[in-house]
């Protein structure tokens, strides 16, 4: 199927090599290990495998089968048709990392555009070619800040309102190392950004928050940025990139590092991955930033061209002295985000961000007016996601909502037991007014049934 050699060709090649049988090519493998019997299903034709995989796919309910209000770090957005058509070009998806610039200008050029668009969006000066996802991008921010101060500031102060899976990832990376990961009020995401100020000191390399935070809240972060800079620390912000179609970019209020989960920019939910880590910083820190970077130059024919640059930072040259081990990034997902931003452009991104904002605010106002429900943070601005206090445990409500064909919001009790009646609700351009109204009447009915 995917192995084109014929038996005759194999024989001719064996003869050229000077061995009799294929098995002779494995003579250096100790005999007792050779040819284990693998207990795998028998090979299938393309027709059979398609049927098999379709069966598995159909065993799932999708966000298209439901009315979806679930977000919490992964969002249901519209993806213009052209995005996947570009991604399906074999010239892009069957190429490797663009090490040979003469035959990789397509990928290199697109990455340069990606870096530029990420800077446009975040208000930063330089960006890398992408990272794995939003969580690992935060972990790399911690690492970068540590190296900016050459290890002399071992402490990173992280907001308890960062996505709990991002915090968990940072802990896994560094808990047993000489980095100190300090999360004031860890386990309680409700305190605002001021709650971090006390923990910032001269040993702090990085202060990092999320914007909007995990509970959907949007704070003015300039005072926190100032507090970090007063102690000489870097200020990092993990963003929802779609929100930056509307909200002030972190570069405007003093961010030194901006990371993001890029999934909202044209990448399907795909049960959690592959997504896209965005990473941007100030140009003076570019050499401490991990990941691939593309720069502009010229070729021998006088043509503008692009090339991987600053490679002496990377693991294949520095080996154990490299600041990070990352090599493969998520280039194809970066291409998706680049095409998405190219298609939406200046007006389109602002427009879709505003639609998200208005729909979420309509939903918040409708739901808060229901008996037994209220907004957890009525005074704090939000973008497309907000926290609703509910009269019943969220798990119970969500079970009932499935009967209405509704995929309810995220149950915050899964991460924060004391927020056992708090639902994180995401509303996007995919939700019509009718859907929001249906959610409101369903929640109302569920509360009334319980009271009765």
């Amino acid at each position: 199927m995917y192995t084109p050699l014929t038996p005759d060709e194999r024989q001719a090649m064996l003869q050229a090599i000077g061995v009799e049988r294929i098995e002779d090519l494995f003579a250096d493998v100790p005999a007792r290990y050779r040819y284990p019997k693998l207990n795998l299903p028998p090979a299938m034709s393309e027709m059979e495998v398609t049927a098999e995989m379709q069966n598995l796919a159909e065993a799932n309910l999708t966000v298209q089968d439901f009315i979806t209000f679930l977000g919490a770090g992964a969002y249901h957005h519209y993806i213009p048709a052209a995005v996947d058509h570009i991604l399906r070009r074999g010239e892009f998806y069957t190429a490797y990392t663009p090490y040979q610039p003469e035959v990789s200008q397509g990928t290199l050029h697109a990455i340069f555009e990606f870096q530029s668009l990420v800077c446009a969006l975040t208000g930063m000066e330089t960006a890398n070619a992408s990272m794995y996802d939003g969580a690992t991008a935060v972990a790399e921010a911690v690492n970068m800040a540590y190296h900016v101060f050459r290890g002399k500031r071992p402490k990173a102060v992280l907001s308890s309102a960062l996505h709990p899976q991002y915090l968990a990832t940072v802990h896994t990376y560094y808990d047993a190392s000489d980095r100190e990961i300090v999360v004031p009020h860890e386990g309680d995401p409700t305190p605002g950004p001021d709650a971090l100020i006390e923990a910032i000191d001269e040993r702090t390399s990085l202060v990092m928050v999320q914007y909007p935070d995990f509970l959907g809240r949007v704070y003015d972060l300039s005072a926190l940025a100032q507090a970090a800079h007063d102690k000489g620390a870097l200020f990092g912000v993990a963003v929802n990139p779609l929100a930056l179609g509307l909200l002030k970019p972190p570069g405007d209020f003093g961010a030194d590092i901006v990371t993001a989960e890029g999934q909202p920019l044209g990448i399907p939910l795909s049960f959690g991955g592959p997504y896209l880590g965005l990473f941007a910083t100030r140009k003076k820190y570019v050499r401490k930033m991990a990941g691939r970077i593309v720069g502009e130059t010229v070729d021998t024919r006088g043509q503008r061209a692009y090339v991987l640059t600053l490679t002496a930072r990377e693991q294949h040259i520095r080996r154990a002295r490299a600041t990070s081990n990352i090599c493969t990034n998520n280039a194809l997902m970066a291409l998706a985000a680049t095409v998405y931003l190219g298609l939406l452009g200046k007006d389109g991104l602002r427009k879709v961000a505003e639609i998200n904002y208005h729909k979420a605010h309509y939903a918040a106002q409708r739901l808060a007016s229901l008996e037994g429900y209220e907004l957890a943070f009525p005074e704090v601005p939000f973008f497309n996601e907000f926290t609703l206090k509910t009269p019943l445990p969220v798990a119970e409500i969500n079970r009932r909502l499935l009967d209405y064909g509704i995929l309810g919001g995220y149950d915050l009790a899964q991460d924060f037991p004391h927020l056992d009646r708090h639902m994180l609700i995401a509303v996007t351009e995919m939700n019509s007014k009718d859907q929001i109204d249906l959610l409101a009447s369903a929640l109302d009915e569920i509360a009334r049934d319980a009271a009765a």
Partner: protein
Amino acid sequence: MSEQIKIREPLLVELSSPGRRGVRFPESDVPPAALPAGLVREDLPLPELSEVDVVRHYTRLSQFNHAVDIDFYPLGSCTMKYNPKVNEDMARLPGFAHVHPLQPEETVQGALAVMYYLQEYLKEITGLAGVSLQPAAGAHGELTGVLIIRAYHRSRGDARRNKILVPDSAHGTNPASSAMSGMRVVEIPSDARGNIDLAKLKAECDDTLAGLMITNPNTLGLFEEHIEEVVQAVHEAGGLVYGDGANLNALLGVARFGDMGFDVVHLNLHKTFSTPHGGGGPGSGPVAVAEHLVDFLPGPIAEIVDHDPDDDTPVFGLVMPKRSIGRVKAFYGHFGVMVRALTYILTLGAEGLRQVAEDAVLNANYLRVMLQDTYHIPYNRLCKHEFVAEGRWEDAPGVRALDISKRLMDFGFHPPTNYFPLIVHEALMIEPTETESKRTLDAFIAAMKQIAREARENPQVLHEAPHTTPFGRVDEVKAARELVLTWFDWAK
């Protein structure tokens, strides 16, 4: 930009026209809310294009790339095999592509089944006891593996074990991943046959040894001839053996890491299991471990948590291993890549996988033997999936491996890996994979021989190569000194 510089394809920002749009969204059907005072951005400096601008731009750009779908891509250690098209279609089935990672488990039984069966099949293929699919790429899998090794030693109160041994033939990620997890890296030299120097290895096997990271077959494409002694030496000193599965393509169905005594390995689904490289990701780097490390795996992982009382079909759930090192990224890993890999394994079955390894090794040895009289091959013995030749000759003093690589582009081939492994001068690391026909290999051999002749007779044609590609050699020094990294850098 200076005016003499020719622009072959504009950037998005240069194609932009004020007021142009590529996508229209429906008008909002809810009453507008007041925008948050003081938090709204003033300017959004994105380009403005139509759909046709964007599609033509990226279609033209795509034509500047070499890719597996175009021609031979013998990039050593990268396993640039053909990426089956059905895998792409399967990953895009709505039931996979449009599933939210935080949906209730009862609504994602098919997705969990994909993860579960892939875990099971990878266990069977590696001969190991547990698998986590969470790591996003090979290097991420390495970091995960080293964190598991550290957690294991610490769980036994053995915290002083902080030394990781890495052969000098190893890929640079091995030492970088070890250092990143707070380990001390000690390099072990290779011997004259390309094996690990056993005496030097044994000298480092003391009570600070955390583990050995070994790539087998190694980056010379050679099977480690003393694998049993190596594993035994590390285990006797109380260390663990980490296998870098980057080169598993050579051993599919032929030998298993678990049987050889490896404790933890990572696999590259984007190499061995045919998922596309995507121009540099997304990859997927699952980690497989032996029984004593199963509880340390990152999670959550998919397990059978129950059986349907009516028909006894399994019910899948997500479970965090008991003493897990924690999660290494958000959610469960690159699920879309898992779908492709599972499709591939189901398509091939056990015999098909063995055929992959056999043909990959046959192709590599055929190239090696056919080129060995033309190119010096420093460790010239039976190779596995790849081999390393020297790209230099005494009677062609000015010619370097890079010149050979660039000249290969004129024949329509992607160059081999250059300058790696570090232990071979002017290295050309060649990995044909199993998906190439004899006809393609013969054309490559002819090109390599012609280049060797040109190196003596007309070296200029090599120094000036490539000639037929859309772009010539680029000025890397200018790129690194001037650092134009976005179009906003132009103004400065």
